[in-house]
Structure formats: C-alpha cells, structure tokens
C-alpha cells in the first residue's frame, strides 16, 4: 500500500505550532511522551511504548560455530522487523530504505559500541559458541522508532538469561533453564539513542517526534550515548545541515536524557526481578 498522503494544512499547523515553541500534543520541546516498559514471562521479552509508538523485543539463543576470523567470540545479531502491523505502507519481507536505516542505526548503537561481551559467549574456542539473537518487532509506528527500538532491544538483552554450561574436556553439557541457574549476559554499558527533529531551517529542535512531526521536519539528528558520557553513534538525516557548535550542544544535552532513560530501565528491571523472586518463593 502507498504511504498515506499528508495534507498541507496538517503540515502548516504542525510546523507553526513548533515555531511557537509548543507541540501539537501539548508537550514542551524537550519532553518525552509517556514511556512504559513491560516484560513477558520468558526471559528476554520486553515491550516498550513511547506514547502510541509500540515496540516488542525478544531475545533467543542458539549454539553455532564461531566465525573463522573471531574464533573466541560468540555472536550478537539484532534484527528490526517492520511489517504492516506497524503501518500499512510497510511491506512484508522487503525492508526498504527506512527499514535498512533503522536496522543499521540500532546495530551501530548497540552492537558496534560493544555493549555486550561477546567473548563470554564462547564455549569451546573455534567450535562452539552462543549466538544471541534479538528480534525487535515494531507494533505501531507513531514516530521515534529509533529510540524505542534501541530501548526495547537493550532492555530485553539486560533482562535475558542464557543457559549455564559445563565443559569437561571435549564434552559440553548445556543445562536447561529450568534445571540450572540461568546466567545473565555480561553488559558493559548501557547505550541508548535519542532523536532530535529540526524545524524552521534547522533552528529549532524537538525531542521525541511523533509520526507527523517526523514527516514534516527538515531533518533529524540521532545521538547514541551511554551513562559514561561516551558517544556511541551520531547520525544526521534529512535535508539539512548543522553547525559544529549546535551539534556539541545537543550532544551535551543528551547525557542527562540518557541517564533518565537508563534509570527508568533499571527501575523496570528491578521491579520485574522482585515479582519473579516473590512468585518463586511462594511456589
């Protein structure tokens, strides 16, 4: 299906509202929508929503042979699915430009910043290793998919538990999850992405754009950062240019935003751990 055509009156209204330092849904320029994080029954399933944008991530594992040029490392594979569930103009199977962009951004922010220790996933050097696969499904697209997918994927990876294993010579025993203590992944740092949309020839920036704001903006800047103040990714998209000073200023601002997002994530994780522990004790 073709993308729904957006009218000029929608465009002028949205752009004019941002120009007056307001937003159509009543937020301020640098305010997030309501963010909620929920977990499923199995380890590694996480549902994140930013207002009406909903994303679901599921982490799974399998045993594979490590790659020949990295024999002592396991593998982390992150895949973002954009299907017609999210919006009618997405096609099944075909990723398209936007889907590839989204996939690469999430990969760059989470995988290439080395947030997960892949060396600890190796079982026998050169022969057996864990391959951790994180599938992110976009359930509803109302803008700001990059932030939502990064948060969902990373939270799912933090929530995930892989089975424990013992090696005796050449014999490897993988203990099933209900028998042995499942082991969490070794996560070095928490990288999360923050998107800014620009209006008014790049002069005004807003945080967490909705679908309409993204459609009418001049361009977007994605900054990936972790709580140690390290920049994990920078990406400029759309038809605009940005000066170095503005880039540095927005990147500085991202640190406090990422810290609050990580706090939210950790609170949700600890609440879920409490509930699981309580139900285990009662049983």
């Amino acid at each position: 299906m073709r993308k729904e055509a957006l009218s000029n009156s929608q465009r002028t209204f949205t752009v004019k509202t941002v120009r007056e330092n307001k937003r159509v849904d009543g937020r301020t320029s640098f305010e997030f929508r309501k963010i909620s994080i929920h977990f499923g029954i199995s380890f590694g399933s996480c549902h994140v929503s930013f207002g009406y944008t909903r994303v679901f991530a599921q982490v799974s594992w399998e045993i594979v042979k490590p790659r020949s040029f990295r024999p002592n490392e396991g593998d982390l594979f992150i895949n973002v699915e954009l299907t017609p569930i999210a919006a009618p103009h997405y096609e099944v199977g075909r990723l398209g430009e936007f889907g590839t962009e989204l996939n690469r951004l999430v990969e760059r922010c989470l995988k290439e910043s080395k947030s997960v220790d892949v060396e600890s996933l190796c079982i026998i050097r050169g022969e057996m290793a864990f391959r951790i696969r994180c599938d992110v499904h976009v359930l509803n697209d109302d803008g700001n998919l990059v932030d939502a997918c990064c948060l969902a994927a990373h939270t799912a990876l933090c929530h995930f538990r892989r089975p424990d294993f013992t090696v005796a010579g050449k014999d490897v025993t993988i203990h099933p999850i209900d028998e042995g203590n499942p082991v969490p992944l070794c996560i070095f740092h928490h990288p999360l992405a923050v998107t800014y949309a620009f209006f008014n020839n790049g002069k005004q920036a807003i945080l967490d754009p909705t679908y309409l704001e993204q459609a009418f903006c001049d361009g977007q800047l994605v900054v990936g950062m972790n709580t140690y103040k390290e920049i994990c990714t920078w990406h400029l998209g759309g038809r605009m240019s940005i000066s170095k000073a503005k880039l540095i200023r927005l990147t500085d601002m991202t640190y406090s935003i990422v810290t609050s997002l990580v706090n939210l994530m950790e609170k949700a994780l600890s609440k879920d751990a409490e509930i699981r522990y309580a139900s285990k004790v009662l049983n």
Partner: protein
Amino acid sequence: MAGLELLQEVGLRIDGRRPDELRKLLCKLGVFTQADGSAYFEQGNTKVLATVYGPHEVRGGRSKILQDSAIINCQFSTATFSQVDRKNRPRGDRKSVEVTSHLKQTFSSSVKTELFPKTQIDIFVEVLQSDGGILSACINAATLALIDAGIPMKDYVCACTASLIYDIPLVDVSHAEKAGGGPELTIATLPNSDEIVYISMTHRFHLDYSSKVLDMAIQGCKQVYKLLDEAVKLHVSKLGISKK
C-alpha cells in the same frame, strides 16, 4: 601485524603520516564521454569512480515525481576485486544500501534541487579499490562529478574521516587503522560555512573528546576542499584548449 603500533612515540602512524596529515589525493574530471559528468578520485589506496546523469526525466513511474524539486537517485557498488577477499555481491547487501541512502541524503541537502522540479539526477559510484574512508571518497568523487556535469550546488561537499587514539585525534583513517578497533567518524561539510551535512560514527569515544575530533575532521574537509578546487580549476582551464 605484530609490533606495528597505530601511533608510535615519535608521532608517526603506520604509513608514516603525522596525525593531521591526509593521504595523497588525485582527482580527474571528465573521464567518460557518455555521462553528463564523471570523476575519478583517489585517496591513498582508495580508488573511486563517480558518474552523474541528469537532470533528466523521472524513470520508474510518475508516482515518484516531486513537484517542487529534483529527485536524487544514487547507486553505490563495490567491485568484486576491491577488497582483500572477493566480494560476491557488488550491491544490494545491507551496508551498500546504507551507503546509498547516506549519499542520497547528503546530496539532497547540498544540490540545488529546487531549480529542476519534476526531474531526476542520477549519481552512480563504483569503488575500485577499498582501503578505508570509502564513504568520504565516494562523496568527494560525486561532488567532482556533479561539478563536471554543471549541476548547481550550494557549495562543494567535502568529506573526511577522523579517529581517536588514546587522546590524539587522527585524520583520514585507512583500513588498517580502522581494523585496530578505534572509533571512526565520517563527516561531510560545506567548507565555506563549515556546516555539517552528513555525520556518522562507529564504536565509541568520550564526550570530552568530541570537540577535538570534530575539529580535526572539519580541518581535514577544508584541506580536501583546497585540493578539489585546484583540480576543478585546472580541468576548466584545459577545457577550451584544442588538442594538437
């Protein structure tokens, strides 16, 4: 490559350059007769060819026509012999699609597309030899090809890469330096106004170094601009001369 450090104590890199030195650049414009504009660009061992067709009628359906500006259509492909291991798929894999969309974005914001409504401008880039800094070489080559085609742009689009070793920023990283594991920042600027039109980064570095690394990359872009401008002026001065 045991024993080879990315940055030695005397301040020299693997290939003998100083941290703020670019690799040797070679530019040739007008290398093909069929294309409206073409260019061959070398940056060290990275060799890239770019051709431009247009502005011409939009191909592929009337639904793609933009009423107020031209469409920029890019295609990026790497020759199968361009890397150490044979690359079986010249185009269509994820990284190539990503580079294609980045090229498209960069030039959509720098070519004056509002002057040619309802038309299409094609930019084809082919990597002949790959030694780091592919995207920046492609952007530089495409800029030269667009100038050769006579398409109006806001300014030259000059691109450069930068990295960080310990706390020293390096400019123009080669493949060996990138494989060493350091962060790689690619930016494209409009050199006369220092506005950044494209930025992308892999791995990570600390916020406190961001200003230094950005400065180094912007300086690199200015140097590239000087060389590109010289090449264009030389090419134009020879255009009217008859061959003996």
